[in-house]
């Protein structure tokens, strides 16, 4: 099993979710985060006091999929979240040791 972790631009969330559903990914966890890579932050001004804000608001998605479905999920996110501009985000693929469905106790691929 693989954990697909992606950081994308917030306005792309709905598009990415639909693409993942189409790719057969049935569950998703989303959190609001801040981050930066090559995309610089911006400057805010309040009555002359300037604040350089380095962190940019982003959305982080996490989905655990079977090994077989990992490549498809990555492609789906990449296609839906990309705009061609700096700040589109990144996707990471991690190994997952175990997964458990809390309600039934099923483990492994059956829990996904």
């Amino acid at each position, binding site marked *: 099993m693989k954990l697909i972790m992606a950081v994308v631009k917030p306005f792309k969330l709905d598009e990415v979710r639909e693409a993942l559903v189409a790719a057969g990914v049935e569950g998703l966890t989303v959190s609001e985060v801040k981050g930066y890579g090559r995309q610089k932050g911006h400057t*805010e*001004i*309040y*009555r*002359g*006091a300037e*604040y350089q*804000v380095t962190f940019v608001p982003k959305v982080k998605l996490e989905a655990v999929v079977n090994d077989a479905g990992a490549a498809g999920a990555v492609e789906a996110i990449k296609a839906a979240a990309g705009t061609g501009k700096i700040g589109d985000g990144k996707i990471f693929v991690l190994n997952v040791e175990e997964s458990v469905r809390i309600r039934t106790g099923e483990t492994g691929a059956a829990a996904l």
Partner: protein
Amino acid sequence: MLLAVFVLAAPAAVLAQNATNAPAANAASNAASNSASNSAAAAAPAPGTCAALNNCATQTYPKDSVNSGDTAWMLTSSVLVLLMTIPGLALFYAGMVRKKNILDTLAQSFGATAVITVLWMIIGYSIAFTGHGKYLGDFKYILLAPLNGDINIANTDLAPTIPETVYMFFQMTFAIITPALIAGAVADRMKYSAFLWFMGLWLIFVYCPVAHWVWGAYGWLGLNTNGGLGALDFAGGTVVHLNAGTAGLVAALMLGKRKGLGTENFAPFNPAYAVIGASLLWVGWFGFNAGSAVESHDGQAGMAAAATQIATAAAALGWMAMEWLIAKKPTVIGMASGAVAGLVAITPASGFVNPTGALWIGIAAGIVCYFSAVHMKKALGFYDDALDCFGVHGVGGALGAIMTGMFASKAINANIKGGWLIDGNFGQMWLQLIDVASVFVFCGVGTFIILAILKYTIGIRVSEDVEVEGLDINLHGEVVQG
């Protein structure tokens, strides 16, 4: 605290009853008279007549003659001014602090409203607006005792056509907002207990005397026919704004700068609240300025309202223009601050100037206060006036008072000699400067003494840990969730 008030009021009682022996620390006046305070000077008009009052048309009112139109307007004005503090000023300030301090900032306005209301009733109104003293009123209105017997009496010297309960309430709302303004200078770092003490002591020992000097029927500084110098302050450019602004400067200096100023992100938690607050201030200010006509049966309140709107809009545009030019973007906090600066500057002038005068005052306020709040503060750098209490209210109030001397017009207000540019009366400029200087010095010294006492008894600044973690959770046990 009440016991302390009464004990400290005893020497003030002696002061009020002996106008001839009152301290001469204040600026010498060429018209100062030392006549006994209890009997009106032979040349003074009978109380209740128009000539004895600050602002009205040329009509005579029998004693205690209450007019329903004036009363209705003044009741409305009073609640408009109350709205300026809660929630106008409360939101204006709260929106500009960091999230961890927003509730404390709201509590400062709210708590000040409560403390000052009660103290005004107990002693404030009496020493500010009654009696025949040049420097202080008398103590006949302690606990508003005369109003217990007859709700229909009027303050015939100052407001003969409305019940005195209404006049007392109207002035109460001014007494509430003036010290509440100081919260802007001390934001993010003052102990709440010390803040409330400061509100009460400053009201009694700074605000009430200054209000009496400028607006009391026998005050030495203001426009009256009982020996007052004749400085013009229609609704409180010096009494309210320069006063609060100066106190803010002193308080900011005595509290010290906030930890992390200049290095950490102090960005306002919610500029939307600040704009909502400023909007409530703008609307409520019509009670402040037009209500200071203390009547509605001639054109004065109307002209004051028009002048207020014109100056405020011009100032908002002035600040916006400066910001667009210099910082490249017109911020919403900037245009709201510009509007507030205009409101402050037109305050002393509102019942004395014509629309063109209002326009010039507004433009000047927007531009000057932009520089004083933004650039001067940064350039001087030795004081942390967190929310520009001095930069906007102090500087704006002084500017407005001086420009009142320039643009006051006797065609607009028959009770005055007029100002420099409209009526050729340059002498008015000197009177305005005396007003500004007197308030600045008295307030500066008084504020310093009060805060020094508080600093060395209960302490005024929170500990470093409390300041870093936040005032809301530490001083009030509450937070804004999420």
